[in-house]
């Protein structure tokens, strides 16, 4: 199989820290929702870690649990119906799940910030963008109205909104989609958070604007050395900015790897399918590849490996045994019984 080329010299060296606590460590996290139809297990034992200055891309289709994991880290799940029966979310060594709601709201916005997919609905329509950015300084830092607006204008300049001083009193609907997402970003980095979670930040934007927003995020991250979790279903978006990738499927992590490894040689059939479904110029005119079948129904998960109904390499034990996350190397792991064969290209 021919792999998409990746400029490996642009990628920072693996910044794994041995012996010290990473910035964020999600450990065996479970999240479930109680619904009328039954209990939906949206996240089933997800673990990942992130160091300062690192970018982790969490990849997966809708319903894979990638956003729910992020919302659990942020502490913005509606509980009930959501519940976290098991797991830890350690931020700088402290388990966030053990903190009171009051303590968590101190961390939210100040140390961990989040950017949402659709900036038009994520910004409040009845307040000016300046008000919404300045609010961060007024509420968290007790700043005066005048000072906080000065800060808001500075931030709008920093995310390169033209004529920030004139536009500070405009409302969200008066901005274009890309500019609105810049406002969201300005708001999220207002208090220099250590960790920024971007939940599909470019999905609602057109392609040229997508690249600009990703560039802006990468630049802001370089300047401030914050950790960045990039949630996306778009493989094209992550290649240039991510250090490592966690691929999620059916509420589990199916593959964990540094970004160049995964593009060069995936170790899970699902990842392989995702990579093959990227449209490519050199394959023009040929039928587009698609992973067959539908995403799993979270109310009625398949037995064994959740991916087995769609897997081209399925064996008998895939239907019965849930695969563990096998360590392939110090930085890679795959939740496939046949990861060796997938890596070698001898599977199936």
């Amino acid at each position, binding site marked *: 199989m021919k792999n998409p080329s990746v400029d490996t010299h642009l990628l920072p060296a693996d910044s794994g820290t041995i012996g010290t606590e990473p910035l964020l460590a999600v450990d065996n996290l479970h999240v479930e929702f109680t619904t009328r139809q039954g209990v939906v297990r949206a996240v089933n034992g997800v673990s990942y870690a992130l160091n300062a200055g690192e970018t982790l891309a969490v990849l997966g289709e809708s319903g894979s649990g990638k956003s729910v994991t992020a919302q659990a880290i*942020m502490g*913005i799940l509606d509980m009930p119906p959501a519940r976290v029966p098991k797991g830890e979310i350690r931020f700088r060594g402290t388990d966030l799940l053990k903190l009171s709601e009051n303590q968590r*709201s*101190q*961390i*939210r*916005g*100040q140390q961990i*910030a*989040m950017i*949402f997919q*659709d900036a038009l*609905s*994520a*910004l*409040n*329509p*009845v*307040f*000016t963008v300046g008000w919404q950015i300045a*609010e*961060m300084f007024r*509420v*968290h830092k007790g700043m005066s109205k005048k000072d906080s607006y000065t800060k808001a204008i500075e931030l709008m300049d920093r995310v390169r909104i033209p004529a920030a001083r004139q536009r500070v009193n405009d*409302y969200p*609907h008066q901005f274009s989609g890309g500019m609105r997402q810049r406002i*969201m970003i300005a*708001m999220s980095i207002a208090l220099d958070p250590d960790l920024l979670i971007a939940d599909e930040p470019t999905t609602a934007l057109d392609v040229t604007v997508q690249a600009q927003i990703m560039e802006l995020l990468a630049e802001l991250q370089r300047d401030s050395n914050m950790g960045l979790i990039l949630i996306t279903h778009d493989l094209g978006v992550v290649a240039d900015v991510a250090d490592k990738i966690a691929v999620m499927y059916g509420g589990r992590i199916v593959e964990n790897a540094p970004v160049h490894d995964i593009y060069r040689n995936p170790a899970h059939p699902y990842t392989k399918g995702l990579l093959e479904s990227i449209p490519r110029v050199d394959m023009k005119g040929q039928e587009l590849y698609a992973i067959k079948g539908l995403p799993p129904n979270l109310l009625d998960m398949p037995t064994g490996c959740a991916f087995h109904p769609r897997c081209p390499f399925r064996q008998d034990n895939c239907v019965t045994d849930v695969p563990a996350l096998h360590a392939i190397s110090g930085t890679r792991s795959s939740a496939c019984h046949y990861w060796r064969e997938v890596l070698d290209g001898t599977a199936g």
Partner: protein
Amino acid sequence: MGRYVVRRLLQAIPVLLGTTFLIFALVYALPGDPIQALAGDRAVDPIFRATMREMFHLDDPLIVQYGYYVQGIFTGDFGMTFRGVPVSTIFEGKFQVTLNLALMALVIEAIVGVGLGLIAALRRGKAADTAILAFTLLLVSVPTLVSGFVLQLVLGVQLKTSTGIDFFPVAGTSEGWRSYLLPGLVLAGTSIAYLTRLTRTSLMETLRADYVRTAIAKGMPRRRVLGRHALRNSLIPLVTYLGADLGALMSGAVITETIFNLNGIGRQLFDSVYLSENSVVVGIVTVLVLIFIAANLIVDLLYAVLDPRIRYE
């Protein structure tokens, strides 16, 4: 903005003409002779009858009578009653009483309805929510006649005799704003129920909005998320309802005014229909329509204040 107001006011003219003509035609179609009504069961002198009919243009076609009436209105003259009293004299003070009553009802409605609705929305599915919903059902089911007399008896009379607290006058308007407390509460009854449910639905919908999630993610305290980010957005449908309700409260106060012996236009309207005093009936309706139009205009202008996405050009 200014042009919008002018346009809306110009639009009010055909509305006013249409509604007054309708009510004029309805009163015209009422059976019975208004001149006979003056004399009760006794016979009316034919010469007197002819003079009166001549004076009040009663033998002219409907459209001509209406023309005379509109002519009067535009010169500020509401006409005379058949008993020889200027209609404006009859109105004196009565609109004020009904307006006070309606405004009191509106204030009670806004405080109680929005308050209960907020509690219900924030305690969704819990005991408080269920209790409030049951209470609203009770409110819409109890007729004004029952709630009026019960409140008069319990809060007005029994409270005074058992505890000595004399805070709720049961009749008349001699006690200033306090006179309107009980009738205001009775008049607001059903509206409280509707507003409670509307507030509950509206806030619950807003609480699911993405921007509320953003506010939480920004680390805003719960109080601020609710009071600033959510409430402002939930207010829009409530303002619409309250504005439209002012007109409904003013025209629906007949029974309440009767129970609490308030000398307002509700009772006057009822009496005038009964006595076939057509000019009074049409006059009252005209003023009510004006109030209705004004309230709706204010509501529409408030939208722009509450929601910056709405602009009037």
